[in-house]
């Protein structure tokens, strides 16, 4: 069924009886051409594009919990393509362009809202680095502006300009950056995939992989064996656990990232803002809550919860930047598991096992990548070669010394 304003009005006037299930709950078939493990944003997008853009069929998505229950449902909803390095920027710009047409494409309002993102500058060295970055973004077809201190002040006069430990000296702005209603992304892709015949199978955890003569044959699940010609893994946070079924170790660690939302407030922050002198970034949702975050807790964890030091550190960053929010209340914190890779960049690649493909290592930047990740992974699955924007996301880049290290931190996942 097609969604539109007319449909909403018509349904409203007739008691909402006509709305159909947004997806089916199919029984798993004995085998598929494609199995995507992971019903989060990336997995659902992969299935959607496989069906829609690459004309593939007999596709299933296996989700151990509920659709959209991964990090697509527990992030801070920011989209942007303000990356520094050549290996990343074309991919994220491709993603941003997909975001810009997404709602019309899948007929679901995910509230893509390009209210702009600013990265604040506090030192001359940061300005130099952001100048390098902004130029690179423009050369890759993205948009970037360098704002002066006065321009930032005109946008947000109530930031701490006069009593700051690290004064604001300007900002790098990407006007096309913004936010998206995160759950709606998962639901929109799920609905679009379901409409195209993809079987979305919830409460179906993969417990093993059947591999014969170096080739994948299917997966063992809590709902029995399901055969497949090709299996794509998109299970951010659980990547090491799932790939261990194939006997693989990965260049990544799992870490907890906490995120935060305040009580609902009348509009106070228009776009997205990152503090350059501490661990803090913030935007305000359409509902009015300040959505913010900071650094990962820093130790390996699958617990989906964090501890006080990071909560305090994030609040300190917030207060240093915005001294007026002292009486705004933190409503809720939550933790997600991040695949923190060895260079801070993802992997979308084949594996040593024929028919088994991997997508992961998104660190805490996976949400904005969702459309391009799905598209590029579908491309790889369907054509057995990487999408042109994702050629650098290979396993062997560490062996070859071709790391994509945006922060220049080296092989220490918790620093990325």
């Amino acid at each position: 069924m097609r969604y539109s304003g007319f449909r909403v009005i018509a349904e409203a006037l007739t008691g909402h009886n006509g709305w159909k299930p947004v997806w089916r709950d199919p029984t798993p078939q004995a085998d598929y051409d494609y199995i995507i493990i992971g019903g989060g944003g990336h997995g659902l997008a992969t299935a959607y594009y496989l069906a829609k853009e690459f004309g593939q069929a007999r596709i299933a998505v296996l989700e151990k919990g509920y659709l959209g229950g991964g990090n697509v449902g527990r992030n801070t909803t920011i989209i942007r393509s303000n990356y520094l390095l050549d290996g990343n920027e074309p991919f994220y710009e491709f993603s941003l362009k997909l975001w810009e047409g997404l709602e019309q494409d899948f007929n679901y309002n995910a509230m893509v809202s390009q209210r702009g993102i600013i990265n604040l500058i506090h030192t001359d060295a940061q300005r130099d680095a952001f100048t390098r970055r902004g130029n690179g973004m423009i050369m890759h077809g993205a948009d970037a502006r360098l704002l002066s201190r006065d321009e930032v002040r005109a946008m947000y006069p109530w930031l701490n300009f006069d009593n700051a430990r690290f004064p604001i000296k300007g900002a790098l702005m990407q006007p096309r950056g913004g936010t998206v209603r995160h759950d709606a992304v998962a639901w929109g892709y799920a609905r679009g995939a379901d409409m195209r015949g993809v079987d979305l199978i919830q409460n179906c955890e993969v417990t093993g992989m059947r591999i014969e003569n170096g080739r994948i044959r299917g997966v063992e699940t809590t709902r029995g064996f399901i055969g497949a010609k090709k299996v794509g893994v998109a299970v951010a946070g659980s990547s090491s656990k799932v790939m261990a079924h194939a006997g693989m170790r990965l260049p990544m660690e799992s870490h907890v990232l906490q995120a935060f939302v305040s009580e609902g407030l009348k509009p106070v922050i228009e776009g997205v803002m990152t503090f350059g002198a501490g661990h803090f970034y913030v935007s305000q949702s359409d509902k009015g809550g300040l959505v913010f975050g900071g650094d990962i807790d820093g130790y390996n964890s699958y617990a989906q919860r964090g501890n006080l030091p990071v909560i305090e550190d994030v609040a300190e960053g917030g207060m240093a930047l915005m001294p007026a929010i002292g009486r705004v209340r933190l409503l809720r914190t939550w933790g997600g598991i991040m695949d923190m890779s060895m260079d801070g960049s993802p992997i979308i690649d084949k594996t040593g096992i024929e028919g088994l493909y991997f997508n992961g290592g998104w660190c805490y930047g996976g949400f904005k990548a969702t459309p391009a990740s799905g598209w590029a992974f579908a491309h790889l699955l369907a054509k057995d070669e990487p999408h042109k924007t994702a050629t650098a996301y290979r396993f062997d880049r560490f062996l070859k010394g071709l790391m994509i290290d945006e922060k220049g931190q080296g092989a220490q996942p918790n620093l990325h």
Partner: protein
Amino acid sequence: MTQSHRIAGGQIDRTKTLRFTFDGVRYQGHPGDTLASALLANGVRLMGRSFKYHRPRGPISAGSEEPNALVELRTGGRQEPNTRATVTELYDGLEANSQNRWPSLRFDAMGINDKLSTFFAAGFYYKTFMWPKSFWEKLYEPIIRRAAGLGSVTREEDPDAYDKGFLHCDLLVIGAGPTGLMAALTAGRAGKRVILADEDFRLGGRLNAETFSVGQTSGADWAAATVAELATLPNVRLMTRTTVIGAFDHGIYGAVERVSDHLAVPAQGKPRQVLWRIYAGKAILAAGATERPVAFENNDRPGILLAGALRAYANRWGAKAGERLAVFTNNDDGIRTALDLQAKGVDVVAVIDSREGGDLIPGVRHLRGAEVIDSSGKLGLKSITVRQANGRSETIAVDALGVSGGWNPNVNIHSHHRSRPIYDPAIAAFVPGQDGPPGLLVAGAAAGAFSTHAALRTGRDAAIAALELIGAAPDLPETEDAPTRVTPLWHVAHGKGRAWIDQQNDVTVKDVKLAHQENFTSVEHLKRYTTLGMATDQGKTGNVIGLAVMAELTGRSIPETGTTIYRPPYTPVALGTLAGRSRGKKFKPFRLTPSHHWAKEHGAIFVEVGNWLRTQWVPKAGETEWRQSVDREVLATRKSVGICDVTTLGKIDIQGTDAGAFLDRVYANTFSSLAVGKCRYGLMLREDGMVFDDGTTARMGTNEYVMTTTTANAVTVFRHLEFCRQCLWPDMDVQLISTTEAWAQFSVAGPNARKLLEKVVDQDISDAAFPYMGAGNVTVCGGLRARLFRISFSGELAYEIAVPTRYGDALLREMLAKGAEFDPIVYGTEALGVMRIEKGHVAGGELNGQSTALNMGLGKMVSKKKDAIGMVLSQREGMTAETGYRLVGVKPVDPQAKLTAGSHFLEKGAAPVAANDGGWLTSKVYSPHLGCDIALGYLKAGDKKIGQRMRIVNLLAGLDTEVEIISPHMFDPEGERLRG
């Protein structure tokens, strides 16, 4: 206005009157009141508007679970949005305003949303606003954003202070109702260190809201007596107004104490709130239970409260919510409300009991097997419609209705480690499940033990169990021990109207039905699709009803349907509290250099370098532009002598018989062969082969080295060396100590550097005695120990001299005074930068963690003859390509042209697209010697492009400049000056 709805009794101090305003109207209350109780006592029921439909709302609770009665408290920089009137302690002069309404609370234009509610069903916005494409951001979303949100936030700085503290105890008791008091008493009498924390300003919990006796006295008096005894025990700390917000790892709990929120302004020197980190050996969750309503049509009108809240307002605060009262219940506890209010002289019109067999109260009309199906009253309750057991409907005029659907144990904190609560059909509620936070026991109503006797007993037993106490425990006073008799009733099936589940977010039974219809049936989908439980009360009253309705719709049981888990904090926490003192200038500590006071006296400009404040330049009288000062400092140094404080560089003493071998392992180049009394430039790699850090290291003795690191990496290099020493080569005889803060260190540079130093150094430092790259221990000013290194970052004849930090200031003044004939100047980081770039030395912009030795033109320094950190992986193919980046110098063809660091290289005629991107400028300065801007940059295959012309573009500023690629060694490339 008099307190029209004030009734007898209660724990308020009627001898004192407090004045306050709500929406500008003046009222009076008493100490002990909350804002909500005082407003109710004044006959005010309408206190807020809901989020989506802007429905008129009054309080439904008397506690922190309140979804409706939210106000903007205080004004100016102290304005607090979304403040629950039900827990706001009244103080004299309190000012509160309603929120999320326009133009007024009674006449809210946005109330139109309520009329149009059928168009605003759950998730409607996902299905529309998509056409035309541009309208979402230009039209629809701005309207939605303006309409959304609750209270408004001030733009002024919060004037109050916040603090943090740390506490340790054997037992933390969370909640000071009968359970918590008994647990604390048991542990306290046994001599254990106990912390008893409760969010309320009066300890006792429900005992203060009930009428039954404990022992020979009222519950409230027993609580007061118990508190009095606990207060005499030195091992017990009573923390009122203190909310335990979360259970973290290893027995660490967060708690917020509201030190000053009950005052107009905090007392002098006192914080508004304190964040406590409590380290508890064991903890008992005695957080009680929260009553839940029953969903029926129009169940959200002001005047409809939880039955227990009506009772609390009457018993504790002497306030009644209305003149004519009815009670709607599915359990025995609701009937207590009718009893208590009848005893208070309130006209109890009817008890509507959904069950067939509830108790009867003499003199009160009972409707058994009946349900409330609707209500009326635009801004407050006027009547309810009741469907009797025989199916007949009847309208009853009442202005207050108490609703009880049973009680939910407050399991929240037990769930903070993701333990899922389990459903107990005996009490029709969720109780704590398995795998809660280790060391946390649950007792009393929080564990589903609802009677007062059970609370006292389980509180005592939990303390005994937690602390493994032996010996006598306190006797249990006699009190009520009524069984929990409840017949589940989640919502009243009737008609087509809306029955609210989540009152603040306006989630109704219809929304849950729609979610089910569209297959959003998992509890997480239900929550996210309808926004159930995501309001400021986090679903404390509504969540269970929502999932029970979903269970009913899907035909699954409640346990099968499951529950979402609770996240910290237990109640919302002010960000100021979490930040504490770390704000403004105190966000991070300042590190000051030894020359800081001298520099300040001389009007220096400072710059933040990490936590350090360094001198950026020192303007002289008449200099109005920073460049004037910096150019002068550079020229004066190169002409005669300049002094720069380089104390911020990391300094590490490395000693032991294996010190040289150790350095060979951690540096890419070799140090074991360095002669005593010499220093060498060292390049340190990370294990991944990228350059980590650089600096000079001197050999002061056979087994003694002194390493310097960059300012930025002082801490991480030391950490890394300790890792190498302890984890990789544990038997090497090598000891490390950071001496960064032990030595004040100055660079003395320029042709007259030696002559100046000869004025203070006691030994012979002639070129013969102290040649280029010499190092050694000397004394200054007649015997003060010092270290001298003949090293140069500026390209001049230069030294670094170090003295114990406390003499740094004196040494600087001494050098300036004794060397006055050379006109020495003090230069800052800008002049330092100019001179190092003129010389092509790498620093921050080049040491970016993404660059190899080869990139920096230092590839030959990586020795392959020995094992060192990073040596193997630096040889990977991707890092050794001929086409990779190389460090180059850059100057504009037109000397007047300006360069910008961060600009990118392009060949002449090449379009500014990524495929043509040649690299970028890492650092740029104006060179007063070359008379133009100069820069360093990383250019692809740059070593083969020296002498060529290219373009530098800065697309952010529209700059496109022709430049010449030159050697990075732009000043005195032969190094004649530094050997002079």
